[in-house]
């Protein structure tokens, strides 16, 4: 039978090689570029009027901006301002990536663990460097919870260090797993609908059941696409807050 995870296959669209590495332009790369282009076009097109009283599109663009702006100032505070463009880019990139991926025949690059992991690792390293530049060796006190009993401190340090280094893994796996599971489920139900209707005869009308489930699941996946972009972004903000303010 046809595998529901076949949809995640990377297909090279244009062979490219750089310093001995295969950097072919693939379906994944195409949708990354599309996410960038579509989001930029949408946001610039929506703001073309620069209206004092925004219309629907401009309202949507401003809502996204203010949503992230409030998120940054709410979790990080005023010191988070310089990182706002990065956080905004991250949110827009993931949101458009997830949303474009829901369009049939498209590709969801956020369902690739390597993509989410590299993003999470970049954030993890960046945030750690910010913390070290800001606090120097004082940064190490981050691993000692304040007010803990002296006897427990060695254990707590181990726990804190492990939980700190697990951050990029949990951050990337959360997004990857959600996308993988969601798209696999959509494919399973869609395949089921096709198989049942293919069986013909009295069984064919039964295909309506997985079809109806699929309608619900598709709506749910739209929610998940927005939610996971939000979760990834707000966790980044929280890590940034930890780096700037320690505890």
């Amino acid at each position: 039978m046809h595998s529901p995870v076949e949809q995640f296959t990377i297909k090279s669209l244009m062979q490219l090689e750089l310093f001995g590495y295969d950097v072919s332009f693939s379906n994944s790369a195409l949708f990354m570029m599309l996410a960038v282009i579509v989001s930029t076009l949408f946001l610039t097109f929506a703001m073309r009027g620069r209206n004092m009283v925004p219309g629907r599109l401009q309202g949507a663009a401003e809502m996204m901006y203010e949503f992230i702006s409030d998120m940054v100032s709410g979790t990080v505070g005023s010191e988070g301002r310089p990182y706002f463009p990065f956080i905004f880019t991250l949110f827009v990139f993931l949101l458009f990536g997830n949303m474009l991926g829901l369009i049939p025949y498209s590709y969801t690059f956020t369902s690739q663990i390597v993509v989410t992991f590299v993003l999470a690792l970049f954030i993890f390293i960046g945030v750690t460097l910010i913390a070290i530049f800001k606090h120097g060796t004082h940064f190490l006190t981050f691993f000692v919870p304040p007010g803990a009993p002296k006897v427990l401190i060695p254990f707590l340090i181990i726990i804190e260090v492990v939980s700190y280094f697990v951050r990029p893994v949990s951050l990337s796996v959360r997004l990857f797993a959600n996308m993988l599971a969601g798209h696999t489920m959509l494919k399973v139900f869609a395949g089921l609908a096709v198989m049942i209707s293919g069986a013909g005869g009295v069984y064919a009308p039964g295909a309506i059941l997985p079809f109806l489930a699929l309608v619900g699941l598709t709506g749910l996946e739209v929610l998940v696409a927005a939610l996971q972009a939000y979760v990834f972004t707000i966790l980044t903000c929280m890590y940034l807050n930890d780096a700037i303010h320690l505890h």
Partner: protein
Amino acid sequence: MKPSGQTEPRQFKPYLNGLLAGSIVMTVSHVALSGVALAASEKSEESGGLPQLDFSTWPTQIFWLGVSFLLAYLLMWRLVVPRIGSVLEERHNRIEDDLRRARQASDDAEQARMAFEAMLASARNDASETTRKATESITKKMDRKMETANANLAKKMASAEADIATARQAALKDVSDIAASSAIDVVSQLTGLKVNKTDAKKQVKQAEKAIA
């Protein structure tokens, strides 16, 4: 301005309908895609395993992630964020400015009202002062006129009384003459006797004395 409680459900419903319609369209496409894939998979056999764990695809994805994310960052940082930010700031400033101007206008109006009230109060004062002065002067004039009128009246009364007194005196003198001549006439008519004038006068005088 409409209360938000009324507009929200109305605004929310089209989104729900849109989501449902979108879900159905996407579902139909998914099913169609699965049909095509099912037909295709009958020809080629699956290798199995998650395509995500095919490490040979990792370098290209990391490379293109870097390229696209950097591009996205540059576009957002240089183009999108300043554009939206400036519009929001402009609106914020405009609102602040309008509020400031409204506050200014309200203060001005309050000041104008106070000035008007002060003017009104002073005008009222002036008016009552003028009225008081006018009343006072009128009263004074009236008093003066009344005094002169009274004086004139008293003078006239005194002279009239004097006239009356002389007239009465004259009349009284005539009365005794008339009485005497009447008495002479009455006696001659009744008795045919002639009374001389001097006797008649003497008798009248005696009678007058008796009456007085």
